[in-house]
């Protein structure tokens, strides 16, 4: 399906990452925004509110983040593509409803503009400290999809992709950006509506009385209907069968929850997107995502100039984690260098998936700015010199 031209602001614009994200949402067909103001995600909702009347979108500012995500889930069931924008503390408050979204298999997009944490941290300062939270933050077992854009153009593109994935797999998708990318102003190109591919919602088309809200189709995804179409369905956050009725036993728990995990694990190849650069002959590979991949690419070029064979693996999809690709590369390289704006999150996954075949060097968020490559370059040099595989993560500049 093609995008609705009403929401597509075709042309070339100079936009911040946040504004680009709002445009991406409109282009993807998002017509409902639940919001609660929080730094540094404000500009997304501002842009959304400003353009909503023209596009024909609705929004509501709720009393807290808890109710925001509840309202977004409700809105999604009326047939409107829905999203919310927030930052760290807000994401923490949304955790319960993230679980409800997974359980009700409700498509929606959560944009998290990460700021330095924990607690109130440093509002407005970039960080990548919510990566693990996006994957593990709600109670119970589930899998989720998380994307991490690194430029305003990608904020636009991957917001659309997030909506498409969420409709395809009926799952909440997290767009894990950060304050740096969100406030970065760059030129972005918005294509014509007919050039934007949109995943339509997968609706049920059979007889009204035969509708089962959680009966999985061949593509492993149950079909949806809208409220008010007369299907009189029931859905619940309790463990349920195909009819959506609660059943409280071991068998049903297995029947209900295991597919929630399979839904993503069995389709990783379709979901995962990584961007590789010069990995063919690389001895050291920088694994990065979001804002840090900007520094990573810069460091790669500089290191190449000084003769070290460096490649870059950029995780566009952070969750599910590209296990296979990392494992393959681990066999070829000496070391992975993982820069993150936190004190060790995705690097643990890299360690797990390298199966002892490569060193893992972690470069935590230093005192220099996001795009500063000094630490990264010295880590690369250190990585190139190593001659044996260590059994632990080597932390660069430990104990600053």
């Amino acid at each position: 399906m093609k995008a609705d031209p009403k929401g597509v602001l075709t042309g070339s614009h100079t936009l911040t990452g946040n504004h680009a994200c709002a445009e991406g949402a409109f282009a993807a067909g998002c017509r409902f925004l639940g919001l609660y103001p929080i730094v540094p995600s404000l500009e997304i909702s501002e842009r959304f509110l400003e353009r909503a009347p023209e596009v024909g979108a609705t929004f509501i500012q709720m009393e807290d983040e808890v109710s925001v995500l509840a309202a977004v889930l409700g809105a999604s069931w009326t047939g409107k593509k829905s999203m919310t924008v927030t930052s760290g503390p807000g994401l923490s408050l949304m955790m319960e409803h993230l679980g409800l979204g997974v359980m009700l298999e409700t498509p929606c997009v959560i944009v998290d503009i990460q700021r330095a944490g924990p607690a109130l941290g440093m509002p407005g300062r970039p960080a990548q400290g919510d990566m693990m939270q996006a994957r593990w933050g709600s109670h119970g077992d589930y899998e989720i999809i998380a994307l991490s854009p690194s430029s305003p153009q990608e904020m636009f593109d991957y917001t659309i992709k997030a909506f498409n994935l969420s409709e395809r797999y009926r799952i909440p998708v997290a767009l894990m950006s950060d304050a740096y990318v969100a406030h970065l102003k760059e030129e972005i190109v918005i294509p014509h509506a007919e050039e934007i591919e949109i995943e339509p919602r997968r609706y049920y088309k059979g007889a009204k009385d035969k509708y089962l809200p959680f009966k999985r189709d061949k593509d492993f995804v149950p079909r949806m209907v809208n409220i008010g179409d007369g299907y009189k369905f029931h859905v619940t956050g309790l463990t349920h069968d195909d009819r959506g009725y609660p059943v409280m036993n071991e068998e049903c728990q297995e029947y209900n929850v295991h597919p929630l995990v399979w839904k993503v694990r069995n389709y990783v190849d379709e979901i995962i997107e990584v961007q590789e650069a010069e990995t063919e002959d690389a001895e050291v590979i920088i694994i990065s995502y979001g804002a840090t991949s900007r520094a990573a690419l810069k460091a790669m070029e500089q290191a190449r100039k000084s003769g070290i064979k460096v490649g870059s693996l950029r995780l566009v999809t952070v969750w599910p984690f590209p296990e296979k690709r990392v494992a393959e590369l681990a066999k070829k390289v000496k070391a992975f260098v993982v820069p993150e704006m936190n004190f060790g999150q995705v690097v643990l996954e890299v360690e797990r998936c390298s199966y002892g075949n490569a060193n893992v060097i972690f470069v935590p968020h230093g005192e220099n700015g996001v795009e500063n490559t000094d630490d990264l370059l010295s880590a690369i040099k250190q990585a190139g010199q190593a001659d044996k595989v260590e059994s632990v993560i080597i932390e660069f500049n430990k104990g600053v």
Partner: protein
Amino acid sequence: MKAKETKTKEIQSVPSKKGEIHPMENLLRMDRMPHIWCPSCGIGLAVTAFASALEKANIDPDKISIVSGIGCTGRVAGYVKLDSFHTTHGRPIAFGTGIRVANPKIKVVVFSGDGDLIAIGGNHFIHAARRNIDMLVVCVNNFIYAMTGGQVAPTTPLAAYATTSPYGCVEPPFNIPYIADSSGAVYVARWTTLHIRRLINSLAEALQKKGFSVVEVISPCGMYYSRINKLGDGLDMMKFYHDNVEIRHGEDTKNLDIGFQTKIICGKFVDRERPSYMERYNQWLSGVKGGSRDEG
């Protein structure tokens, strides 16, 4: 809760005579009967009253969505044959707000208990009332958290016993109509499960009302509240309602406190007009360039 659920498994549904159809069959999910509620519980009565009110108010059932939270009353959504949502604890009003704002053609009914709506959901309750979101909130008040086994609720009267007030409740209870009124609800009524016909009329009236309407339904809890406080069974509670309820329409909501086994004042207390959220929204929209909206 545990005890209850094992119990329901043992009970077999009563075989009906051939061809006999339950009068509410078009509005209730008969395939889910028997329900989980204990004998002497009043929630079933509230549901029946709601179903009758739906017929009476003559609203297209396709265009109604019912949202419940967690708790005994939270299970109502599962037994009503409408587009029904059983959501998280305390959030049905927020969930319903999303539905209503995204699609103003849908009438949202939130059917939940006192603990769900007033304790953990208290914030959403007062805010939805302030915004005057067009929804009907049916709050079944049984003075206790029954699903988790009888803990003290914000509606438990002073000095009443509960498992988390083993020496008597020390907190004064909420006066639900008063808080609804002061936050801006346009329709506020209170009935007990004894006043079925009045309750049906009230619900039917509230369903047709534009704006945030609250109907508090006082219901006996034979399993926990009455048992812990030694108040007898459901029938005794009904007798108590019969003897101690006073109907005073239009009473000032501040006089509606409920004490432990004291007089309960029922009636319709508030019925007024205020612009609803969608009305204000559309009014704002018409003032913005290019803004237009045909729905709602």
